[in-house]
């Protein structure tokens, strides 16, 4: 195990140290005293486990392909931009524009997230990204979503409070959003259908949340006590006819 003290380290120096360690085959890295260093884990390949103590700066895990990063605090903005595979676990809250164009891997957040989370997240036949938010989300959650799975739990939300903000799934044309509780149709774009979960949905949800609860030390039974609603794209090609006539 490699331990790095990031106190007062400039982000370029810190990231060079992490990349060098991963290149040398280091499987477990603990970075202490992080505060605001940008770009941690960007483009990083392999299977290392990186633990971050503190609040890392913006653009963590962009284009990441394989490693697991656990943040023992809050995250900032733009985490998991176009990530390909691997996992990011955030024990606190996180900011805006998480999982932008994310194309694989997992992003688990224990707390709440800001605006524009999972915009244009996408999946292919071979791989599909997953984001689980333990708290609530701001506006534009899953906007222009093209693939993958988004799960919103609202674990500590007040009874009756909306878990998502406005423009929920607006422009969605692929993927699925699961919300634990009721969904106000007024928040959703015209492209969004709201429905009940079938057995296939339940099996997938249970599998994903088993992993999430293990990572977050939560009880799966507690999380599953409440019912979910499923949001799906009403049309796979909502604008297919836009320029056709």
């Amino acid at each position: 195990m490699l331990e790095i003290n990031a106190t007062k380290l400039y982000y370029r120096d810190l990231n060079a140290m992490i990349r060098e360690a991963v290149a040398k085959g280091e499987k477990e890295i603990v970075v202490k005293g992080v505060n605001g260093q940008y770009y941690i884990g960007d483009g990083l390949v392999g299977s290392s486990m990186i633990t971050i103590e503190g609040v890392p700066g913006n653009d963590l895990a962009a284009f990441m392909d394989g490693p697991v990063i656990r943040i023992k605090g809050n995250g900032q903005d733009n985490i998991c931009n176009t990530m390909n595979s691997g996992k990011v676990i955030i024990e606190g809250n996180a900011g805006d524009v998480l999982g932008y164009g994310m194309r694989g891997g997992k992003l688990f957040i224990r707390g709440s997230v800001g605006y524009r989370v999972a915009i244009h997240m996408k999946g292919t036949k071979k791989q599909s990204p997953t984001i689980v938010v333990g708290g609530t989300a701001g506006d534009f959650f899953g906007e222009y979503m093209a693939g993958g799975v988004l799960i919103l739990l609202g674990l500590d939300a007040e009874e009756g409070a909306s878990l998502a903000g406005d423009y929920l799934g607006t422009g969605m044309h692929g993927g699925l959003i699961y919300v634990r509780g009721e969904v106000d149709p007024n928040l959703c774009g015209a492209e969004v259908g709201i429905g009940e979960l079938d057995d296939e949905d339940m099996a997938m949800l249970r599998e994903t949340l088993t992993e999430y609860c293990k990572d977050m030390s939560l009880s799966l039974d507690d999380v599953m006590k409440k019912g979910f609603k499923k949001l799906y794209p009403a049309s796979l090609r909502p604008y297919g006819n836009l320029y056709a006539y």
Partner: protein
Amino acid sequence: MNHNYQKDISGCGLTGLISKKRRRVSGSTIVKSLCLMNDRGNGLGAGYAAYGIYPEFKDFYAFHIMYDDASVRFSAEEYLKSNYHIEKIEEIPTSPVKAIPISPLLMRYFVSPLKDRLVGETKPDDFVVNTVMKVNSEIEGAYIFSSGKNMGAFKGVGNPADIAEFFRIEEYEGYTWTAHTRFPTNTPGWWGGAHPFTLLDWSIVHNGEISSYGINKRYLEMYGYKLTLLTDTEVAAYMLDLLIRRHGLSISTACQALAAPFWKNIDSKEADEAEALTALRQIYGSALLNGPFSILFGHANGLVGINDRIKLRPLVAATKDDVVYMASEESAIRAICPSPEKVWSPRAGEPVVVELSGC
């Protein structure tokens, strides 16, 4: 993969703090917070505003003036002398900084309007606003960049640490601070264009672009404001002066004019509130700030943070004891307050309004 590719990271950075109990905090605190976000700017502008820094002159307007050339000083001072009692004239103390080889001449004046110049109903604040507009638009190369009481703005072309060292920010103590590092996108990086923008005791730091600048500018010009600083943020400072000081709107109502709720959200409100919000949008349509922004504005009695209506720029807030912090990044707050009691992201268009306790 080539990791040696170097890119400038775009996006301004802002930070601010306020001690509700008016405990004065050293400038070194806000400098430390801003410097954490050094990479958000590109060295083409940084600045600080502080409240409570001139207690010995608190009844005088503190004019900070930058002169492009020492010769301009004479005509500006002639004008000031014929309109103001000048309690004190001094150069703003600066330290030589290698990275700032050239700077304007920077002077500070503690003044009060001459009684016989306040004709009719003219209030001292209006008189000062007129002076700022006149000097900035008519005296070529002279800019009053700070004009409030017991507060001051310090700004220039440089990165946060250099501008702080240049203006000796750590020597000031204030109960409210705002600070900004700039990445100019649409307008020139020059001394007058650095943030904060101020008028009387209003001071603004801003991350984003006010795309409604033209509409806002023409609207303000109808009320006698002259926009001379070549940067969109200037409209926000004058708009607050117009809406709050001159039109008497409350801070939260003014914020609803600047970042008005969308019509669909107004329609979903109760009838009374919907009517009030509709009236506000109709009357103050030209005050609406369109485009992405996060803004901190300081004033004599408090600090306000506000985002545009769909949160296109970051803003994080935190509290610890009697201090409220707001910044573009949480880490900039934690750099000076490692264990805040509460950290949250304000929602779009919903201002965080913090008021100082009584004098």
